[in-house]
């Protein structure tokens, strides 16, 4: 798993590539918590290049969503497709997150 970030205005775009499973999901959660500790509260998490996600990955995203909710922050997801979209659909996570095709689409709305 690789995490890349860029800043767009007051929004942090976090792009996650590779695999988000039991071993790697904690690194995503830690990275996000570090951004939040730096005072960032608006996130676009782009999963367009993510190949694989397990329930551990969903739990990490859920944990971050809870932290952001307490800080009145925002998290939206972009690029859900293939196997990753399938996991979000089965667990019905897809219906509770704002999702967009591309980060640019999300940025236009935030």
């Amino acid at each position, binding site marked *: 798993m690789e995490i890349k970030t860029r800043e767009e205005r007051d929004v942090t775009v976090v792009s996650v590539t590779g695999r988000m*499973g*039991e*071993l790697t999901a904690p690194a995503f959660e830690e990275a996000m918590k570090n951004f939040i500790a730096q005072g960032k509260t608006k996130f676009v998490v782009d999963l367009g290049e993510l*190949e*694989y996600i*397990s*329930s*551990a990955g*969903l*739990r990490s995203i*859920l944990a971050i*969503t*809870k932290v952001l*909710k307490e800080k009145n922050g925002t998290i939206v997801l972009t690029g859900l497709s*293939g*196997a990753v979209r399938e*996991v979000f659909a*089965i*667990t*019905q*996570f897809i219906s*509770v997150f704002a999702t967009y095709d591309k980060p640019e689409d999300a940025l236009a709305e935030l």
Partner: protein
Amino acid sequence: MYGCIKCPAKIEHIERFVKYVRTVADDSGFSRRRINNAELALEEALVNICRYAYSEGRGDIEVACRADEDHRLIIRIIDCGKPFNILTVSEPEFTGDITNREPGGMGVLLIRKMVDDITYRRRGDKNILTLIMSDKRAQQMIKDP
């Protein structure tokens, strides 16, 4: 023949089992999507064993994977931990605020949705979980070798 592999029931060993099953599925002609499904079902099943099967925290997991004559992938997972039949686990409730949702049950739900069939047997001190999945691409290879 691909035999089987056996490792201590630790999270850090999951990737070894995943790579082994990926190799068998790939050699059997499974599509990228169905291999991803197999990896997910396997990871979720192994995480359950690593977390809950062994109260002393020590024990092994054995995984044997093969394709049968119908080009179905048969993944057999054996542990000697506490009896645990995932077929009796109820599905998580999808009501209310997501941030209040309990994460438990999601793994078992994903296993059920990723594979075509699941069997569970308790034989002696062993849990024997078998995941069975088919793939159109692999079955097409039987017709058009």
